[in-house]
């Protein structure tokens, strides 16, 4: 394992930012730390980098099986990319990238020519060769972030850590840059950890996603695993939009109003309230009622733009709001108007009992 975090805790005054976190990052992978703001993901990243210290005696950080907790940030040989780039404003792009090579002790430092070759190689990698003599202020946000990345890679770090690397960019550049980062990672294979609060970004770019909440790790898995098999309600709702259906547990079943769900026999809990979670794209909408498991609703809003048109619906039985996403074809076929009555049915529902998942597909 390239990075191993063993029971690390961090408190700021009364506030516990990290509760006994353990985590492993396999060699050469790109791992996302995903969570809402304030969940401790940036603190964890900064502790891995050595920019922040864990609580005394709380645990270990291992790089390639070596404990680095007592090493200073400069000795850990990490590359760190800051959210707001933190480029040296008075240095050219070239000098920024060369910095890590130039400050090495004399006996480790490479010759001027070698440094120059290495920097130009990196500038080629980030496609900014022609901008070598410019200053950071003369670059766009995306270009600055690429320079920051090249600067971090210049010293050939053992691990690359990125703190919300695309957070300060606008939507389009953000998407382009994260795809570029993925391709770059496939080329150079340096073990990388990046922090993000954007679930789309994490699911698209990472090999592994670590979902965090309130200083704890909620789930670790591949993007498909965490999306399709969320470990608990938090992960489920954080990874996408959800509709909630409230119901009760009966012998062998759960009832969500007219919908009856068969439960696996292992759960004997009786007469409990349960919540069923349904993604908007798992809500089937139709004009006609085809079974008694359907719920009647009124269309209250239509968002027709985009690849997945969205409907906002209001249930007639309990007036709760339900969001449904349709394919464009289905949307055109239905040609719904605001105020129309429709029938909805969850195609797939996830039921959690006492925070534990009970997989159920309709």
């Amino acid at each position, binding site marked *: 394992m390239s990075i191993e975090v063993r029971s690390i805790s961090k408190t700021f005054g009364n506030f516990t930012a990290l509760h006994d976190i353990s985590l492993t990052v396999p060699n050469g992978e790109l791992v996302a730390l995903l969570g809402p703001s304030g969940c401790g993901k940036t603190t964890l990243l900064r502790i891995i*980098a*050595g*920019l922040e210290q864990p609580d005394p005696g709380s645990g270990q950080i291992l790089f390639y099986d070596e404990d680095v907790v007592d090493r*200073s*940030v*400069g*000795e850990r*040989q*990490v*590359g*760190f990319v*800051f959210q*707001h780039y*933190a*480029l*040296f*404003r*008075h240095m050219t792009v070239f000098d920024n990238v060369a*910095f*890590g090579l130039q*400050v*090495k002790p004399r006996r480790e430092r490479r010759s001027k020519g070698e440094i120059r070759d290495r920097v130009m190689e990196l500038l080629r990698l980030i496609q900014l060769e022609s901008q070598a003599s410019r*200053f950071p*202020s*003369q*670059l*766009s*946000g*995306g*270009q600055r972030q690429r320079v920051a990345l090249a*600067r*971090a890679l*210049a*010293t050939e770090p053992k691990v690359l850590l990125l703190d919300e690397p695309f957070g300060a960019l606008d939507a389009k*550049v953000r998407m*382009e*840059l994260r795809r570029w980062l993925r391709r770059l990672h496939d080329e150079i294979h340096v073990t990388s950890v990046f922090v993000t609060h954007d679930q789309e970004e994490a699911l698209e770019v990472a090999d592994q996603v670590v979902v965090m909440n309130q200083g704890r790790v909620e789930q670790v898995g591949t993007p498909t695993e965490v999306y399709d098999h969320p470990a608990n309600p938090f992960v489920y709702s954080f990874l996408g939009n959800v509709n909630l259906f409230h119901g009760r547990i009966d012998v062998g079943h759960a009832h969500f109003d007219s919908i009856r769900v068969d439960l696996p026999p292992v759960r004997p809990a009786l007469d409990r309230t349960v919540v069923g979670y349904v993604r908007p794209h798992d809500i089937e909408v139709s004009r006609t009622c085809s079974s008694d498991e359907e719920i009647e609703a009124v269309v209250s809003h239509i968002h027709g733009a985009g690849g997945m048109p969205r409907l906002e619906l209001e249930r007639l039985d309990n007036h709760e709001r339900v969001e449904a996403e349709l394919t464009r074809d289905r949307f055109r076929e239905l040609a719904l108007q605001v105020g129309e009555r429709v029938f909805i049915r969850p195609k797939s529902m996830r039921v959690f009992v006492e925070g534990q998942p009970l997989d159920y597909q309709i």
Partner: protein
Amino acid sequence: MAGTVALRKQPLPDVTSPVGAQKPWIKWLLVSLTLGFLTLFLFVPLTAVFTEALRKGIAAYFASFNDPAALAAIKLTLITAAIAVPLNLVFGLAAAWAIAKFNFVGRNLLITLIDLPFAVSPVISGLIYVLLFGLQGWLGPWLAEHDLKVIFAVPGIVLATIFVTFPFVARELIPLMQEQGSEEEQAALVLGANGWQTFWRVTLPNVKWALLYGVILCNARAMGEFGAVSVVSGHIRGQTNTIPLHVEILYNEYNFVAAFAVASLLAILALLTLAAKSLVEWQVRRQAAETLEPTAAED
């Protein structure tokens, strides 16, 4: 004097306020008021200094400097500035760095204390030193025992000058360093730079113009300080007189040509300071303009 430090050297905003646009006479009224005020209180006295100094011809003007007492005063002023300015540069940098880059108990108190010399009258500043080091002061008897002279001697003048001028560098640097934050320093440390390299290669270049600006103001004040120095100096001719004190003595002796000639040195210093200050401001503004320049959106 204290007011000048508050003026930040941001690029001036383009003033096209609705008021100004609608009523051009307001603009002209304000401009002429300002110019009239400046003429009355700045240009006229400045001209008077040079006219009086040259009243008896250029030879008499230069003869005023050929007096041992005048030369001693010039020398003492230079020595005082040469000690006070570097010390305040180091102090200002250290204080600004501590305040801008670290969080510690008493940080706000320190910021307030740095302003203290601006808040108290220079005469009081001088009196504090007399109370501390004077013969009747707290440390006076001990100093006398060891045959050390502070008050009515050069050390007292230097101490008073340092006290009066220490806010200048710190006040210039604190807002800038706070605005810049410490991310660049962190980046340097991650890249393997040690503390010294980080300071010389990252922190210092980022604040060099503000630092120079602070030093210029600090120097001007160090050479021109009257009140605090007057209290601790004792006015011993040829020994503890700085230029401003020497001017006062000459004036009191009705030696007007010499008084104004020596005063003209301070006036020239002020003009040079203004020129240097404008140059630095121009540099700072140019840098700011570079930052504000529309970025090349090539992504």
